[in-house]
């Protein structure tokens, strides 16, 4: 603390840097969930997809020595999980929320099963862009070391925001999500649109998982994700199904997640577990503050079972 000379200023700085680092998986999963929910389905299984994407990404990156191939593998694995969810949910009387819970367990189980041999080896990391190179203060440099995936995610949220409003695909997805009957009348296959939207959501969740294992925290183990996938689902509700708002919400959640480690780095160890729980508490408080028992939420796709 003394030798760096910035003392407690390190906390907000570390929270800022941490927000950028920690928020990336939130950002990807929430954008993915946003696409899925816009089509009128909810996929709670993205938590499992995230963990499996982390494992697949790490394993492939290790085997091929290419971090980007790892990201690709994470995305492909996520697409499989998403398509599986979409396929199961097209049968009558199958509940999408329950299937999500099942896939959460299944994805996590498969990831632990196949990931056992990859706990020890070291895979290559994703590159980061040193935006803080101008500074001589190491904390500033560390905080502004921004990963490429974060920038891709930011661009993606802008693109999705534009695409939902201005492209035909965006319109079809929104129609299916707001009125399946209307979409059917227009000749669209509702099940297929939802399957593809869930698969696309899975791709993004898988990429988010690959980020976890290939950049931050940057290793594969069974504790790699602790509910990020699920918090991202809550985050989409908070962001009112708006991809741009997802970006802001992800940063907020990232900051909450970075609070514990940041305080620990300046020597505050008391209450470590409680700070660790900050993102969960924040999510819960936001859900309590923004839900309503009487009116339906603004911007909610009306086919969504969670808001009906």
């Amino acid at each position, binding site marked *: 603390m003394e030798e760096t000379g910035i003392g407690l200023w390190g906390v907000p700085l570390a929270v800022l840097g941490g927000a950028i680092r920690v928020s990336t998986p939130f950002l990807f999963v929430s954008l993915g969930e946003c696409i899925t929910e816009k089509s009128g389905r909810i996929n709670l299984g993205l938590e499992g997809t995230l963990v499996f994407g982390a494992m697949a990404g790490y394993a492939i990156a290790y085997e091929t020595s290419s971090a980007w191939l790892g990201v690709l593998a994470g995305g492909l694995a996520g697409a499989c999980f998403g398509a599986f969810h979409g396929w199961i949910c097209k049968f009558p009387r199958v509940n999408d929320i329950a299937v999500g819970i099942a896939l959460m367990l299944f994805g996590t189980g498969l990831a632990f099963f196949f990931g056992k041999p990859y706990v020890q080896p070291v895979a290559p990391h994703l590159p980061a862009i040193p935006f803080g190179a101008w500074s001589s203060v190491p904390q500033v440099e560390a905080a502004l070391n921004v990963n490429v995936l974060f920038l891709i995610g930011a661009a993606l949220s802008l693109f999705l925001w534009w695409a939902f409003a201005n492209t035909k695909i965006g319109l079809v997805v929104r129609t299916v999500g707001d009125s399946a009957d209307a979409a059917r009348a227009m000749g669209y296959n509702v099940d297929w649109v939802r399957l593809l939207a869930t698969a696309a959501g899975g791709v993004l969740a898988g990429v988010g998982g690959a980020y976890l294992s290939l950049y931050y925290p940057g290793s594969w183990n069974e504790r790699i994700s602790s509910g990020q996938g699920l918090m991202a689902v809550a985050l989409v509700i908070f962001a009112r199904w708006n991809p741009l708002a997802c970006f802001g919400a992800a940063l907020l959640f990232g900051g909450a997640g970075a609070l514990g480690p940041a305080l620990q780095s300046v020597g505050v160890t008391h209450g470590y577990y409680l700070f660790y729980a900050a993102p969960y*508490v924040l999510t819960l408080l936001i859900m309590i503050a923004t*839900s309503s*028992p009487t009116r339906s939420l603004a911007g909610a796709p009306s086919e969504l079972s969670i808001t009906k």
Partner: protein
Amino acid sequence: MAQMTSDTVAVGLGGPPAEVAPPLGEWLARRSEAFVIPVAAMIVGLALFGIFILVLGKSPIDLYSLMYKGGFGTWFSVQNSLQRASPLLLAALCVALPARLGLVIIGGEGAIVLGGLAAAAIAPPLTFASPFIVIPLMAIAAMVAGGIWIGAIGALRQYRGVNETIASLLMAYIAIAVMNQIVEGPLRDPASLNKPSTAPIDPAFRIGNIPGMDVHWGLAAGILGCIIAWVLIEKTTWGFSARISGGNVRAALLQGLPVKRLVIGFTALGGAFAGLAGMFEVAAIQGNANASLAAGYGYTGILIAFLARQNPLAIIPFAILLGGVEASNGLIQRRMGLPDATMLVLEGLLFVVVLLSETLYGRFHIFQPEMWARNRGVAR
């Protein structure tokens, strides 16, 4: 229309015709849908898992025989399975009771953890008291802790419209963090060095085994809990009101049923059962509260509740079955060289197949009363 006329005629002639008891075969067929489909789904799930094992180059025959041997092959393994089933029974109730009101609660793990912590916290200062006072007090503390935790989720759902599925899982993470904080902080036993734990509870307050078995009393409590829950749902007015609310909230409100109180009561009761599971983990197995309380019983409980289709009595066989599957895990790992996540994969697969089987209900004519009625030429 035709049915109505014939009834009217019958009443006109002096009372309805005596109800003919259906033959046993028909009665069995009509009653067995809720049993045949989940069991068939389990068999399909096990078969798919066998294929998975075969693809990995291992023998599914070995897997099944080890599963049987490790779960139910000997009296020792049966007792082991029953021991493992006891927290699962109570954890599944935490899913099944709210589910009857249409709530999907998946955070039973949080109630288990806090129930165990409450039991472990209340026992050490009471060394002077009799076990007949302290053990019930531990149970009450655990049930209150679990009940408040899950009941709060029901209240949030009713008063704020918060989605209970996400909230319950978030609360489970929060509960585990609270438990870790308390176990490492205010309640830490200085003697526990490597694994922070609370002070061990007095041996006099430990819960022993059911006489003649190597299984603790948690099994009896779990089975009793399932029976109580079944009676509550099927045989009481509260249960009847809950089932109506779960089926159609608007109809229930129109009837003036206390939906809010029912939701909070059923979630709290589910949480109390899960909290009790935590108390047995502490008082019968661990002897204190520590991070091992979060052992994943809450998550296996979700699977069991869905296998049992949220029927408390059906939870009993499925919990014992899953207890057996988990009991055989160690043997399968050692003999077949499979990782410890093998059972997680199997459970996930079973869960998916069981949910997929939901689509089959009502599809088979053999289970439908109409088919039997048609065959006998009776208009019902």
